[in-house]
């Protein structure tokens, strides 16, 4: 034990030099009380320098812990006003447990989660419906679109993303060409590296990779921006000023993303093919005209359009889910973090899911 103590008959005298020691030795003190049949405890504070609410709280906690043995506690060598403070703290009504650590049964949790999911899905469907109506309104009356805001967002979502999209696509093309060349070389089919990189990027990887990058960059940004606006009551302020949140905040983001994502996808295809071309020319010893000619023969306008149209659909999904998650933020900054994560995860999931659905549909149609 870190505390000096003496036992005189049925009285245990404790002489702590630090109140933390009293907490540290609580188990041992209880053991002594139980085994030595102690009836009263004298807590001598002559070595304690600070008589503040911390000291009083430790004594109160100590008292609560030894109360079960039905013994008395006497505090010695303490100022009178400190004893009054101890009494006040001891008389405080401590709340039961903590709200944040509330434990529910598993059935209740499953039930709550199910209802939450159903409720959120219904809300999401309603939100997408509202968004479509607003989109139609914009088509009929393009003047109501906030053009400056939309152009600014196009810059943020599109132009700023070109370096990262370019670099990742270039490296992806390089890797694809390099990996496929190992196999194709065995059959003397080096030239098909151009077809493989070109086709895979135009139809599948181009739109998917670009969309994933944009979901990570801009989908999360939309959720964080709108979430923060929600917390600081900016959304409520706009609403009471008579603004339609969909038209004022969401549509510029959705439209900007739908315009720039297809363009980014074309950039992505271009950079990936540069990567493939470098491997083709410098590692597989193909000539530049041969590589470009093979690419020209393989790729049709349909393939490129296929990717571009898919990227428009992905753009809608990324922007709408980012904004929706932002608007679901309730009151705390914690919610903003959750909304941002959820916007990225849901965005990527929706991209892959939609791509799979399109692939299946196109196979059977």
């Amino acid at each position, binding site marked *: 034990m870190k505390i000096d103590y003496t036992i005189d008959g049925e009285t245990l005298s404790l002489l702590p030099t630090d109140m933390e020691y009293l907490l540290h030795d609580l188990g041992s003190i209880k053991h002594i009380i139980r085994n030595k049949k102690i009836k009263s405890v004298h807590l001598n504070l002559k070595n304690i320098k600070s008589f503040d*609410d911390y000291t009083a709280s430790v004594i109160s906690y100590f008292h609560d812990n030894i109360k079960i043995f039905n013994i008395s506690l006497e505090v010695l060598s303490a100022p009178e006003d400190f004893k009054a403070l101890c009494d006040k703290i001891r008389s405080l009504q401590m709340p039961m447990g903590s709200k*944040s650590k509330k434990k529910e049964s598993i059935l209740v949790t499953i039930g709550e989660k199910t209802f939450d999911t159903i409720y959120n899905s219904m809300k999401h469907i309603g939100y997408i419906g509202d968004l479509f109506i607003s989109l139609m309104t914009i088509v009929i009356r393009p003047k109501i679109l906030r053009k400056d805001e939309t152009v600014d967002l196009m810059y943020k979502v599109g132009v700023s993303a070109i370096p990262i999209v370019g670099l990742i696509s270039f490296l992806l093309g390089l890797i694809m060409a390099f990996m496929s060349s190992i196999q194709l070389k065995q059959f003397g089919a080096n030239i098909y590296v151009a077809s493989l990189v070109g086709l895979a990027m135009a139809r599948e990887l181009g739109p998917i990779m670009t969309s994933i990058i944009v979901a990570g960059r801009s989908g999360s940004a939309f959720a964080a921006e709108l979430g923060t606006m929600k917390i600081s009551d900016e959304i409520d302020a706009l609403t009471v000023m008579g603004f339609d949140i969909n038209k004022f905040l969401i549509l510029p983001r959705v439209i900007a993303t739908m315009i720039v994502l297809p363009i980014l996808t074309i950039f992505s295809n271009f950079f990936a093919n540069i990567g493939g071309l470098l491997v083709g020319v410098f590692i597989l010893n193909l000539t530049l005209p041969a590589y470009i000619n093979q690419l020209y023969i393989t790729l049709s306008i349909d393939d490129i359009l296929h990717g571009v149209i898919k990227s428009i659909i992905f753009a809608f999904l990324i922007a709408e889910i980012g904004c929706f998650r932002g608007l679901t933020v309730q009151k705390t900054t914690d919610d903003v973090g959750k909304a941002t994560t959820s916007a990225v995860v849901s965005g990527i999931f929706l991209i892959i899911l939609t791509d799979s659905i399109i692939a299946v549909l196109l196979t059977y149609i």
Partner: protein
Amino acid sequence: MENIVEVRNLKIQFGENIILKNINFSVKRGEIFAIIGGSGSGKTVLLKHLIGLLESYSGEIYIENNDLEKIKKKSYDAFLNEIGVAFQYGALLGSLTLAENIMLPIMEYKTDNEAVARRIATWKLSLVDLEGFDNYYPSDISGGMKKRASIARAIALNPKILFLDEPTSGLDPITSTEIDNLIKRLNKRLGTTIILVTHDLESVFSIANSLILLDGTKKTIIAKGTPFDVFSSSDRDVQKFFERIKKSAVKL
């Protein structure tokens, strides 16, 4: 009474932009000291310099006879233990309950025992008349309650100096009076020196022992002393400030 804070020839400047200059004042231990002035006069900037959050200054700031510049280099953590700050909008962590907000500094600096920390938090909440609100989140309570909870967090470690930034701004007169009474009570009960930034004159006259008045145009102190001294000053700028405040109060 000895000085707990002393500011000598302070000049605050962001780049080319001078915010305040020729600032000289001292705060006595145990008093309630107010920094007043119109919007944009540099009150909050001065407060942030006194607690070491901003460092764009020349001149000297002494806290308990120690140079703040040296404190920042050598013992800033210990200094932060000695002061408490309640920010204008509360700055309570939204993901934590009120008790958890107050337990945060207690568990960092005082004790690892959660039960003891919770007990101290409950005690601090009772000191600011928020008994029973331990498990409420900041989003569940009103603006006045948030201010009181942030004061409770600021006094969690029994600071020697308590800095309050606009403790009554945005509150109705009744809640403002409650906060004023709370500040007086804390000052009396805990003996804490309180430095508050405000533009609420009613509050200043009811609680402050002394004050300085900052002027946004002159970028310096235009009056200092007890509230009565400052109010009865014959200086034109000081009179203009009080007239402006009076007019805005009448308009309301």
